[in-house]
């Protein structure tokens, strides 16, 4: 590295604060893109900034997503609970955090998860998976098609 460059004013890439919108914090770094996909953030025109592989005492490496101009309904945001159970939401209005929310595993899950039963119809035809959540703490999902249980250890996100 050339010496002269270090002497210059260091360039800083900062993830700026948002005026109005939602900050999703404490997303595990390895599920960041799943969260983006589940919330459909890859299909919207709003300004979004995210950082990943940030240090976190709780998660090891975490990610953070800032979405300008969007507030989520509980029902929508809870869909990320399977991949980011520790996620915390900061609701921002006029640069101020006006509300903090946590995500909760919903009573039913549509899409997102894969049924672990290799003989289930959802693994043969193009069917959106549907599950009833039979346990929230140690997540257990009952497939509404084959009626088999998919447990946390066997949980695969589609």
């Amino acid at each position, binding site marked *: 590295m050339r010496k002269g460059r270090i002497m210059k004013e260091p360039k800083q890439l900062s993830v700026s604060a948002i005026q109005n919108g939602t900050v999703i914090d404490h997303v595990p770094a390895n599920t960041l893109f799943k969260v983006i996909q589940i919330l459909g953030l890859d299909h919207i025109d709003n300004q979004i900034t995210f950082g990943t592989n940030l240090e976190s005492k709780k998660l090891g490496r975490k990610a953070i997503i800032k979405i300008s101009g969007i507030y989520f309904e509980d029902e929508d945001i809870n869909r990320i609970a399977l991949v980011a159970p520790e996620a915390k939401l900061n609701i921002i209005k006029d640069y101020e955090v006006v509300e903090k929310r946590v995500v909760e595993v919903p009573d039913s899950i549509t899409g997102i998860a894969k*049924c672990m*039963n290799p*003989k*289930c*119809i*959802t693994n*043969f*035809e*193009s*069917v959106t998976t549907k599950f009833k959540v039979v346990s929230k703490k140690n997540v257990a999902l009952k*497939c*509404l*098609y*084959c*009626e*088999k*249980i998919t447990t946390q250890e066997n949980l695969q996100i589609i």
Partner: protein
Amino acid sequence: MKNRSLVSIDDFSTQEIIKILDLSEEFEKEPTRKLLEGKVIATLFFEPSTRTRLSFESAISRLGGKIVGFSDASSSSVSKGETLNDTIKTVNNYCDLIVMRHPIEGSARFASEIATVPVINAGDGANQHPTQTLLDLYSIRKTQGTLDNLNIFMVGDLKYGRTVHSLMMAMARWNTTFNFISPVELRMPDEYKLYLDNIGLKYYEHTDFTDIISKADIIYMTRVQRERFSDPIEYEKVKNVYVLRNTMLKNTKPNMRILHPLPRVNEIHTDVDKNPKAYYFEQALNGVYTRQAILCSLLGIK
């Protein structure tokens, strides 16, 4: 129940089950009626199941309905690579109700979402076979006069047996006491025992049944299959333990009846067949009445 599908026994409330059983009784008295005249029923058997198919077709024929369908997937467009989605969408246009047997679990629920006509699940892999459960319930009520407070012995393969799981879950609605008799390898899965624990029903597990069957109201036999054992020696050890013989029935209750979903191989010795407590062939006949009741209920005819 008009225009509903029957995919899983849990789809029906206790009242609805009783309604089906009452209606089955009516059909037993008068099984040949022109109630399905002008109706076309599709019987789609993606895997062969001669007994179930013939029972359905007999039920339909006796009521004057017409049958379209196939008896195994090789004679359908599935062999050309058609998806289940497309098969159901097409067949839906040709009939008033679909009876479907398919090796993939959950296929019946999927079909019922696609079809606009009612779908009856005639077995979806290891998952559900609700018409078998209803005919079992009918046979139990008919022979015992009630479904309440019975002592049911389930014998054989309780781990993989779809019929015993569904029957157990259904009978749990009527304060049943269960005795599970099986080799250790083929015990009733924990999830079902947990269910009984949660609702406070008693069950007992045994590995042999010769000394205890005097308490039984119903003995429900199933086949212990060689291929379920990872160690063939284990199979050899147990294969004769779960065979019911006429001599074993001496001290059983007078009301006791032996049920079996059939086909039987050797788990009920043929010397039992002549015993008035053997009920498995009548049970198969009851399947026709029960299926008539189900068909007519879902079509809104009865």
